[in-house]
């Protein structure tokens, strides 16, 4: 790729020119000067500039594929007027004072599609302040007014005198200046990088030649590989274990009981796995979750006999029900879902007993990991160092209250008193059986229309297992996201919610509550349109009069998809719209039914309004990814229980979407000057209901039990 070549050429060129004076830096920003190396100067927590013109963008969010590295680098480069090819991202260390997520009240972490939204102004300011220092340094050096200096692609110029310098040349002088408090930012119309389509992803090269380092790839001196045998039921405990055969496996160096189970330490992963297989274990299930999925469902339905915690109550739902002309009721069942990121959970830890710990992790919340690990190892928080490396996906899986695998690695390191550094490895089976699922949900919907075919009632009841213990009588907001602000103009709306207490651990899964509420909401509205004898698009638009952004994405999606065109026999088309993470997405899904009745998903047209777009191609990629991730899940994924044991083992039982399942995806972005909002998750929620509505067109069947294969849908 040309950009790579030019950057390499550039670096080589400056090396050949021979940088002699060099300044190093530490994070406190103090300079240390050395001869013979490159000068590196930290301008603020987010920018370091080197005398060879490399600009290091410090990325406070982790990269799980969502493109944040590219996005945050773009924002800095924009205000800095830097040359894109000279920008090199680097992950921030764990340091909540400098690198907190501004939407997370002091914690450092990534999630809720908030990376760009919370960083946009912060990174712009960081870039503008550094640029201002470079300009002032040049002004002083050249004895010209700062206002007459222009910057372009990492070069400072003064037209009057014809003087120019690269940022690298000015780094020493600029470093001595005090950062200004208040530096004006660019006007959006002057952006040259933000919103432009030609910036290649910063992680593309390393991820196409095998050189990108994930935690799974980290190797440090004196490191052993650890796998853990955990109780096969949630809430189970080790009753007894015999490790004599495990210890006899070649390469196994130790076996220890830790709070999570039995840890096997070995010289390579395979030996650790063989050692684990050789353990003889008995379990205590007296306090475990011992039920099967059906029994859990009964508990949900029993809870729903009463009204739950009220999430929204508008008008008079009971009266609307009594006076209705047409009524219908639906019950939806959403299964437990595993995130199954491509890289199974793992992490490397070096522990020096009583002194310090250092982790290498595709770490989604460094501050949480620090807190948990410090507690387990009885260390001060500042003595726990976290090195963030690339994460092989997450979809929500990597932020848990107990730091899950990070905590487990600390337990394994503690049990051997830091004798070895530990690489904790989970297998795919460990991952699929390891909990932290998108909770199973049951939702009930009662809908009514009056004699004029106007919708008069939306009565929605939601039941699931909260991610953290929430008392039965307290509303779990996550479970009803997307319903509390139901955009459809219906006079009587009531939404309630029940918390189920369970030992099965649950967690945010890409798009969180929207992953189920968007389905019931958008299938529900389609059902109402059908009752009214109305076109599903027109019906929605009529009810969205006060919601112009929803209406706009819907209209554009319909137009791009050819909504209203006559469909050939066996072809169906469905539509859905949903707001999540302050972004608005509409999708139109086309399906065909083959002669055996099997469904093929042909095309998805997707329109997003996410405010100001930083990298349009990253937004498109996230829409494609959200669509694919949601599609695989709704087609055929579930985690189910048989007497407390998870029935799925490895990918064949939890089949990821395959190449052959992937439809054509077309993404359109609404131009906007609104503040930037999320893109990692919002592409997912509308997919499943739009697909369901399309399948209804060719089968006449409303799918209410997911995954769709459980409702008798075959996919070609």
């Amino acid at each position: 790729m040309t950009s790579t070549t030019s950057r390499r050429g550039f670096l080589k060129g400056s090396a050949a020119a021979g940088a002699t004076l060099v300044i190093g830096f530490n994070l406190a920003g103090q300079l240390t000067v050395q001869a013979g190396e490159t000068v590196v100067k930290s301008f603020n927590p987010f920018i370091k500039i080197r005398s060879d013109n490399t600009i290091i963008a410090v990325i406070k969010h982790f990269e799980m594929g969502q493109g944040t590295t590219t996005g945050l680098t773009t924002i800095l480069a924009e205000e800095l007027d830097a040359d894109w090819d000279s920008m090199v991202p680097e992950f921030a260390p764990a340091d909540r004072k400098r690198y907190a997520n501004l939407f997370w009240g002091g914690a450092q972490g990534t999630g809720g599609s908030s990376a760009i939204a919370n960083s946009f102004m912060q990174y712009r300011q960081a870039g503008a302040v550094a640029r201002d220092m470079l300009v002032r340094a040049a002004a002083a050096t050249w004895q010209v007014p700062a206002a007459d200096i222009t910057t372009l692609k990492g070069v400072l110029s003064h037209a009057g005198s014809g003087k120019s310098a690269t940022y690298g040349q000015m780094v020493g002088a600029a470093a001595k200046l005090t950062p200004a408090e208040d530096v004006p930012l660019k006007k959006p119309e002057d952006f040259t990088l933000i919103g432009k389509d030609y910036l290649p992803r910063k992680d593309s090269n390393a991820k196409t030649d095998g050189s990108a380092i994930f935690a799974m790839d980290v190797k440090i001196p004196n490191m052993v590989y650890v796998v853990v045998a955990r109780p096969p039921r949630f809430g189970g405990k080790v009753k007894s274990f015999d490790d004599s055969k495990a210890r006899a496996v070649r390469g196994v160096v130790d076996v220890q009981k830790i709070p999570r189970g039995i840890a096997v330490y070995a010289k390579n992963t395979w030996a650790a796995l063989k050692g684990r297989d050789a353990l003889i274990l008995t379990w205590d299930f007296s306090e475990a979750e011992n039920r099967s999925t059906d029994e859990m469902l009964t508990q949900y339905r029993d809870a729903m006999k009463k009204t739950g915690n009220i999430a929204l109550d508008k008008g008079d739902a009971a009266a609307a029900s009594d006076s209705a002309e047409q009524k219908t009721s639906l019950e939806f069942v959403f299964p437990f879902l595993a995130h199954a990121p491509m890289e199974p959970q793992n992490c490397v830890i070096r522990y020096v007993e009583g002194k310090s710990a250092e982790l290498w992790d595709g770490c989604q919340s460094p501050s949480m990991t620090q807190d948990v690990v410090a507690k387990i190892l009885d260390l001060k928080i500042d003595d726990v160092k976290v090195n963030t490396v690339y994460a092989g996906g997450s979809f929500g899986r990597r932020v848990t209250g107990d730091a899950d695998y990070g905590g487990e690695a600390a337990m394994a390191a503690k049990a051997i008193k830091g004798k070895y550094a530990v690489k904790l490895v989970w297998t795919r089976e460990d991952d699929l059986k390891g909990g932290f699922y998108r909770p199973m949900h049951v939702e009930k919907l009662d809908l009514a229309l009056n004699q004029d075919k106007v919708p008069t009632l939306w009565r929605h009841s939601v039941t699931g297992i909260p991610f953290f213990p929430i008392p039965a009588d307290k509303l779990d907001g996550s479970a009803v996201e997307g319903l509390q602000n139901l955009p459809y103009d219906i006079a009587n709306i009531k939404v309630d919610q029940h918390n189920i207490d369970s030992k099965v651990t649950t967690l945010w899964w890409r798009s969180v509550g929207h992953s189920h509420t968007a389905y019931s909401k958008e299938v529900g509205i389609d059902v109402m349109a059908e009752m009214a004898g109305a076109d599903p698009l027109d019906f929605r638009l009529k009810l969205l009069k006060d919601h112009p952004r929803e209406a706009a994405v819907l209209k554009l999606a319909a137009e791009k998809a050819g909504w209203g065109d006559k469909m050939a026999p066996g072809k169906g088309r469905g539509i859905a719209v949903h707001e999540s993470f302050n972004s608005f997405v509409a999708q139109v899904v086309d399906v065909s039914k083959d002669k055996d009745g099997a469904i093929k998903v042909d095309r998805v047209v997707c329109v997003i309004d996410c405010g100001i777009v930083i990298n349009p191609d990253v937004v498109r990629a996230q829409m494609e990814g959200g669509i694919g991730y949601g599609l695989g899940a709704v087609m055929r994924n579930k985690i189910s229980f048989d007497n407390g044991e998870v029935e799925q083992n490895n990918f064949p039982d939890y089949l990821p979407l395959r190449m052959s399942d992937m439809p054509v995806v077309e993404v359109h972005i609404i131009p906007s000057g609104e503040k930037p909002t999320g893109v990692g998750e919002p592409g997912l929620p509308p997919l499943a209901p739009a697909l369901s509505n399309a399948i209804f067109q060719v089968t006449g069947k409303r799918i209410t039990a997911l995954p769709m294969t459980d409702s008798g849908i075959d996919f070609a």
Partner: protein
Amino acid sequence: MYQVTINGKQHQVDVDGDTPLLWVIRDELDLTGTKFGCGISACGACTVLVDGVPERSCQIPIEDARDMSITTIEAVSGKVAQAVQDAWREKDVVQCGYCQSGQIVQAIGLLKENSAPTDSEIDAYMSGNACRCATYHRIRAAIHVAAQKLEG
């Protein structure tokens, strides 16, 4: 001791004979571009070229690998490999990137066999390689781009 030829170099490794090639490559030889995703031939993350043909390294015990010439992502080379990697970068295929070594090695195998695959041929050949980030749409496009590069 088992002998194995990886990326043109012979190595002696002191592991059990049933150790999958995947773990030898990763843990013993520190070639970490080849990934572990499932261990049971269900994801393709561990794909390497065995005598030029894509194979799942998690399914090859080291004792069977003596006479194989193995190439990992770090050492793929030649016109086809270059075209594939360039196309991947041009299309910015990657997201998390964890599956991509396997995808690229598999795509190299495809284009060696079939220099101008159709969409359905791509689907068939690539369907064993899972991508949880669902970059499939772009993988398909990138394979077409690579095919064009090879033709041109």
